[in-house]
């Protein structure tokens, strides 16, 4: 059965056929599907790539190492999708890559996905000693990303900071205050109404 789903993707002979078979494979949530789902990210078929990313995110941490291993030397489009899968999974092993992508990637859709992902890292997977340092890097990076020239990346940075604020509410109340202060600045200064409104929504939730 599992094998059949994988073969169906290999045999798909149309764009829509590929999307449908990848959706089926993703929904099956089987570990054996990981290499195939990662391969699909490089097919330059956005519909299929979205389905493959969804499938990889559902599979969660078991997909993290294969994704990281495959990233080097991968074509740009596929890298972007892989980074979005890692952002969706939130495993701290992808943290360095997300930190770098959120600031430096040239595509705003990747910066936006990475910024959001930084707010939803599964911190429990790190030791207490590691958490503080990693959260500090996320905090500083998201403050920087909240000044991105693209509105949608700044919006994603607010979502990321909102997520981080919830994670550190109890453990690091100082950061929570700093994040709230940044949100107030955004409300007063951001030129995009949607970004200000999202900061407002975060404040209402956190206070």
């Amino acid at each position, binding site marked *: 059965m599992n094998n059949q789903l994988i073969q169906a993707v290999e045999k798909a002979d149309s764009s829509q056929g590929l999307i449908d078979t990848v959706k089926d494979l993703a929904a099956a949530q089987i570990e054996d599907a990981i290499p195939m789902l990662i391969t699909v990210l490089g097919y330059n078929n956005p*519909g299929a790539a979205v389905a493959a990313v969804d499938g990889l995110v559902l599979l969660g941490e078991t997909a993290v190492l294969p994704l990281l291993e495959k990233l080097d030397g991968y074509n740009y489009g596929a890298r972007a999708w892989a980074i979005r899968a890692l952002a969706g999974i939130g495993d701290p092993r992808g943290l360095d890559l997300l930190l770098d992508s959120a600031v430096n990637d040239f595509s705003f*859709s990747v910066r936006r996905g990475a910024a959001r992902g930084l707010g939803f890292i599964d911190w429990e997977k790190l030791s207490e000693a590691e958490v503080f340092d990693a959260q500090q890097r996320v905090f500083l990076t998201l403050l920087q990303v909240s000044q991105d020239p693209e509105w*949608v990346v700044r919006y994603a940075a607010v979502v990321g900071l909102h997520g981080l604020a919830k994670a550190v509410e109890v453990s690091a109340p100082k950061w929570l205050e700093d994040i709230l202060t940044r949100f107030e600045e955004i409300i007063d200064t951001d030129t995009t*109404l949607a970004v200000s409104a*999202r900061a407002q929504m975060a404040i*209402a939730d956190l206070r």
Partner: protein
Amino acid sequence: MEQQYLELPSEEVSENGESLTVEEAIANLRHEELGKRYYAAWWLGRFRVNIPAAVEGLISALEDDSDRTEDGGYPLRRNAARSLGKLEDKKAVPALIKCLESSDYYVREAAAEALEMLGDPSCISALIKLLDGGVEVAVLVPGKPHLVQPYEDIIEALGKLQAQSAIPLIKPFIEHPVEKVQYAAARALYQLTGEAVYGEYLTQALDGDNLQLRRSALMDLGAIGYLPAAKAISETLAENSMKLIALKGLLEHHLTINSKVNTQKSKVESQLLLSDEAIEVMTLMDSLL
């Protein structure tokens, strides 16, 4: 308008092509090489150089006779009209109205779009004139990929400009055979009448099986800020980037209307009143990042 849909970084645009200073670009509008004129006209719009010298230079370029295509089109005039739309200087309006009578379809199209962006109602009667003959004459030009007039842009502009007198003229276009013209009519009629039936018409278009048309309906819904479409927008099969732009349109339209209602309050205070609908739209946006 197309530019914003692409997932290209804004930084990259400036790296491609020639880098210019503002003075060079304005001077290049009269450069002996036609290619440089064409590029300069685009450049001034791209970087929104809305200083009087740029606007005047572009207005003069609307009468250019040197740059011609094989079938008589005016490439420089097209670029100049497009850029003038972005520069927000209403001084350009009379010259753009004149362009609506150009023999070049693409000059008329660019002028209608620019007039929509400038938002000056003095062009309404000239736009309405292009709807003469109604749907019956709104047919394809033989051998060309376009209709006799840029109906989409004309109708959208009339909607944006709140041209109430155009309502009976626009209504028949909702049955035009070209879907994008139908959508433009629905979009304008929603803006002119506020009737939900037109918003619903566009919402249903999100279910269609042509990606280009779904994208078109997304942009229309974002432009009119039709709030009940939020969920359908988040679920239609299209790029998340475009869905996010459409949802941003809904959200900001809604927030602007709400803050107008609360005119007594300061900016910050009025934003404190995020409605349940606004929060729902933002929650959908979060899920698309």
